[in-house]
């Protein structure tokens, strides 16, 4: 691959696409750079949507990112509809096509839905967040379906907005993501603040426009002014259906984020090698690390270092702020490094392979220190 790279196209204008564009420049690419995104907005912070943006009174800027410096030609509000890998062409829904020498796929994911009912709100994009904020102003009763971090953050935001909130969860909320010990800490805090938690098997959404209800596995029916689901994400890979690159909706990449030598896939839709097998890690710092590595690999090939991702996860809800380095969920009881149960604390779980997971709860700590702690060298 020694032909000079003249044109790079990045599809998707989220944090992964933005970071890829920045990193291409840092790796020395000074040719023509184009970013296409289907949202009308400049790239913003998605994690803020379910945290500060839902709560922050009149401050509507917590999601804004500083303006980009990569000097790319930005095409906003236009969807990429197809890819021809032989001719190296990205086709756009407005009928135009973009030729490339290297391509970055960074189209993220969308919210999985339980129904087509317009009453079912989801939270993935800025427009969703603004809609939700608007609806919360009237303090409706709310049912949130989904006991993962996002569902719990939304429930927390709705409670703080003065709504009566019921959370419908398959099993204990957060147990799948965090493990039983931490899930218990969060559920207690949530119940203390007045959240109603309903555990069920699969819940369904039924009814018709104007009258939606949540039906639990045992047939019980919940009705509310507002139904919000947070039941996972679906990678945006539909536009790549004809390329043969998509497997079960996901793009499999190598340790440098490449699907093939001229195409990288980064962020939420990419499954990359981890010590626990190839997986998607649809999180903020994962998107950033993947994008940096892949951009360098597109420009410099195998000289560029492979990804050595150490998961970093955080959440804020019900007055608790958690930061975790290392693989989650964690099983069993932690060792308390600082503090103790019920207060600001620093915990560690050891895994059989010698690695560990370090967790700070309501405790400000530099991430590098948390990383050292997870590795047992802190």
């Amino acid at each position, binding site marked *: 691959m020694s032909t000079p790279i003249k044109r790079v196209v990045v599809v998707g204008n989220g944090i992964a696409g933005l970071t890829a564009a920045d990193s291409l420049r840092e790796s020395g690419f000074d040719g023509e750079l184009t970013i296409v995104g289907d949202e009308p907005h400049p790239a913003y912070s998605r994690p803020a949507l379910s945290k500060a943006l839902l709560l922050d009174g009149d401050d509507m800027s917590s999601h804004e990112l*500083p303006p980009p410096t990569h000097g790319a030609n930005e095409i906003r509000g236009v969807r990429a509809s197809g890819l021809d890998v032989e001719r190296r062409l990205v086709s756009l829904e407005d009928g135009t096509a973009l030729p490339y020498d290297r391509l970055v796929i960074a189209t993220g994911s969308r919210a999985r839905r339980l129904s087509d009912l317009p009453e079912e709100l989801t939270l993935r994009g800025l427009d969703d967040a603004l809609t939700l904020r608007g609806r919360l102003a009237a303090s409706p009763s709310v049912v949130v379906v989904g006991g993962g971090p996002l569902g719990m953050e939304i429930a927390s935001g709705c409670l703080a907005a003065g709504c009566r909130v019921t959370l419908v969860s398959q099993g204990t909320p957060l147990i799948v993501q965090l493990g039983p010990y931490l899930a218990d800490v969060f559920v207690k805090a949530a119940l203390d603040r007045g959240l109603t938690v309903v555990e069920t098997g699969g819940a369904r959404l039924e009814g018709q426009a104007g009258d939606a209800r949540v039906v639990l596995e045992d047939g019980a029916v919940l009705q509310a002014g507002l139904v919000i689901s947070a039941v996972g994400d679906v990678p945006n890979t539909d536009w790549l259906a004809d390329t043969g690159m998509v497997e079960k909706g996901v793009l499999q990449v190598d340790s440098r984020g490449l699907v093939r030598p001229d195409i990288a896939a980064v962020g939420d839709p990419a499954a990359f090698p981890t010590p626990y097998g190839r997986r998607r890690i649809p999180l903020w*710092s994962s998107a950033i690390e993947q994008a940096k590595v892949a951009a360098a690999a597109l420009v410099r090939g195998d000289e560029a270092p492979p990804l050595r991702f150490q998961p970093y996860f955080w959440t804020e809800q019900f007055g608790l702020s958690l930061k975790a380095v290392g693989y989650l969920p964690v099983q069993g009881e932690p060792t308390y490094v600082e503090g103790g149960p019920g207060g600001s604390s620093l915990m560690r779980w050891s895994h059989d392979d010698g690695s560990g997971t370090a967790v700070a709860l309501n405790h400000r700590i*530099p*991430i590098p220190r948390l990383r050292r702690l997870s590795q047992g060298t802190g």
Partner: protein
Amino acid sequence: MKIVIDRPRCEGHGLCEEAAPQLMHLDDDGELVLDREEISDADASLANAAVRVCPVAALRIA
């Protein structure tokens, strides 16, 4: 150029420190400390990387 912190907004994630440990660090209380007032051109891309990675947009370049 300079990096400016919006203090009330900073949540002490320290992802910025990880991106540019030469330019900033969190102190023992988890407060972000900028180690260099003035950012040279040579460090501009480092500074940009640090600003960009903050998920709550607490940093900007001025």
